[in-house]
């Protein structure tokens, strides 16, 4: 039996009729139609499906959608306003941290959550915080650089070196 629930995604309310067994990722992608959240494994191993729930990075592929009613869900689509990029997104581009882009939405959201809590993380802190987000293209080096750079952009020390 489907259930009617209200989900708040990126500040907008959606009334969705879903099965109580439906996972958040499928509701976001299929029912709501926001395809920026990616599914790399569907069982909690890769981090591609990361969204923020009340600001905390959460694997949407192992989170039941019904459990998210009343919480603030942020997907990658909710991070930037129109064509204006969030500093984390800007930093990923500037530092060449994007290749195929499949891990990117999850990686960007996990990075944002980290920087919200810890604006100037050390390399080791970045590595620990993002160890659950797999990327097979970049070798991670440029992602680490991007997160450091984003930290600087967010605290207004933006215009370092060539970036």
């Amino acid at each position, binding site marked *: 039996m489907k259930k009617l629930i209200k989900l708040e995604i990126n500040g907008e309310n959606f009334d969705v009729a879903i099965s109580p067994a439906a996972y958040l990722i499928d509701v976001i992608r299929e029912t709501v139609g926001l395809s920026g959240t990616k599914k790399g494994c569907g069982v909690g191993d890769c981090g591609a499906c990361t969204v923020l729930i009340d600001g905390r990075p959460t694997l949407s592929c192992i989170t039941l959608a019904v459990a998210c009613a009343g919480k603030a869900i942020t997907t990658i689509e909710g991070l930037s306003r129109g064509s204006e990029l969030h500093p984390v997104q800007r930093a990923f581009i500037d530092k060449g941290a994007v290749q195929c*882009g499949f891990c990117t939405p999850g990686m960007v959201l996990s990075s944002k959550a980290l920087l919200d809590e810890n604006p100037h993380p050390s390399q080791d802190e970045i590595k620990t915080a993002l160890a659950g987000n797999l990327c097979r293209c970049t070798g991670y080096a440029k992602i680490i650089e991007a997160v450091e750079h984003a930290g600087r952009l967010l605290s207004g020390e933006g215009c370092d070196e060539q970036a």
Partner: protein
Amino acid sequence: MSKRDFDVIGKGVTRKDGPKKVKGEHEFADDLQFPMMLHGRIKRSDIGHGRIVRIDTSRAEALTGVKAVLIGAETPIKYGIVPQMPTEYALAHEKVRFYGEPVAAVAAVDAETAEQALDLIEIEYEALPVYTTPEEAMAEGAVKIHADNRFPGNIAYEADQNFGDVDEAFRNSHYVLEKTFKTSYVNHAFMEPHCAVSKFDTNGELFIWSTTQVPHYLHRHLSKVLQMEMNRIHVKVTGVGGAFGGKGEVSNNELISALLARKAGRPVKVLYSRKDVFLQHRGRHPIEMRVKVGVDKDGMITAIDYDGTMDGGSYGGWGLVILFYTAAMLHLPYDVKNVRFNARRIYTNKPTCGAMRGLGGVQPRFALESLLDQIAIDIGMNPYELKKRNAIGLSHETVSGQVVRHCEFRKCLDQAVELSGYKEKHGKLPFGKGIGLAGGYYISGTAYTLYMAYKPHSSAMIRVDNESGVTVYCGATDIGQGSDTVLGMMAAEKFGLPFESVHVVSGDTSLAPFDLGTFASRVTVAAGSAVCKAADNIMEKIMPVAAIQLGVRPGQLEARNGKIFSVFEPGKEIDFWKVVEKYIDAHGPLTATGDYTPPRRTGNFKGANIGHSPTYGFSAQCTEVDIDTETGEVRIVRVTEAGDCGQPINPVSVEGQVEGSIVMGMGQALFEEIKVGKDGRLLNPSLHDYKIPTMADVPELRTTFVDSYDPDSPFGAKEAGEGPIQPVIPAIFNAVYDAIGVRFTEMPITPEKVLQALDAKKKQEGKGR
């Protein structure tokens, strides 16, 4: 083409797909939705080898919501990426050859219904013995996995090549070392699972959107399997979420989606689960190889003898080609006159091996660079010294006839050694810490197509007009490596326009002119050459127009900064777009094409077509490790890479290729391995149990380039995406030897193996005392 100061090439540009990707707007195949679209799922075999006796799909067909059910007997047409050796079916026909092979497929209104229907399909098998190792498959009396295989012992194909006089050279050697090496069964583990969506239009033409590296080969295969003319099939490459060779041949889901769409009369999406990805596989061949190398008293290599058995898994795939690539990649980047290569690829009852980043090179490189390291140490020479002495020079022709037109490998060795402090560190670090050196190289494209054809391997068309700007149409496929950006940069440089003003249309068999696809590190050189020629042809058309406008000769004109100007008479200049307008006013649309065919070289032996490439990339790496002798854990501390990729077109992307290669190689060296049960079942087909490197594993990466420019390549460029993985594994193994004095010859070096080896070493030393 000569080197000069470029405006776009070698400068950092923002790739156009960057903003889309960070916003999650880049469209992958699974992001596509069509009205009335069905979801396809695949029923897979639950035995490792056997004959299909009976399939009953009636209960599945009766399930509400099921719109089509398909079995192999309905599509009994064999295909294969190597067309001379077709071995595969879209769905198993008459027999299954590995545990998890697709046997039937269902299209239903949603994925859950399709999955339910799979459970209702009944299949009866007559089991055959399951062979999970080449040894078992080659044993006397083993059942043939492919009945029509012309070789005995489940040998898919064999190779023997012999150059010079290997035995004589060994007899005259100062020192000879022989060891047996074993590589592991690893998967590409790209992040995006395969997905394809097929849709027939009202006129019965097929449109397929897929995450493929090879739209052209998909196009051919669809035509064969669906028995449709190619001109009624349109292949569109969506965003590709990583591929590394794994999407470099046709995947069952692509054919199945098309077959189901035809049968159901509705669009069908077939998305793989992560487990499906492991079953589709096409990862690196495990090879057991006995390799013998001799040197004279100066450390010059006298001969190499190789005997290898490749575990191919159940189908042909790229296997035949990879077998011969392994031969071709045995001895370069060193100058060796006597080389013998004997090898065979064996069918086993496992998911098929195929093309994976650096194919053909990674395994022999591992063996050879390990042996050279050991030989140097054994004869009291620094490994760097030995490798440098044997390294080929600026150009070279191998004993097998491969022509290297441009090489800066010696510079790579020097730079990696110098930056890492290798000479000061090697042999001198405290127990548990070590540094290792290895070199490598890779092709930048192949000399031949997989089927007999004389057509150009790449072609491009450029359209320039005042309304839509510059559009480059090229069939090359951007799989995340950034080839669209590179091709756009090349056109921009040629026209003297900013990169942002060039549009690239690629990866579409209907819109873009022919290209073979993205594999063998061919795109920058091949598609790049085609784009450069097309751009030159455009310039040839407009320069006379500009010359008339300016009252000068066309030969003295150059295009830069949006202007066309005389190099001799400053001030004589005209806006690029003004010239385009004048041209179009007088002559009509401004378009031009360009194409590229690599030099066709061959020789007088079996497999002689394979290994030739227009040009080659080189690299050297020094890797530092720190081994925890309590836990056995090998930690990579720092990797210093010096690469000769010619002129890097987009340096940030090239660094990204190098870094991705290093970390991928680390995974294979230290922990990645697919485990297979006796019944042929995969034991760890998930990203939880099949570990790939995470951010926490990443060492310090020092990615550098040597000064290099191949004058015969487009803007001096060579490959960058597969060369850098070549030295990774042996550099780690050599570092481990330097750290603890144990020569591992089998991948991966797990902590258990380290502890065992340390234990054995202690006992050995105890005895010695």
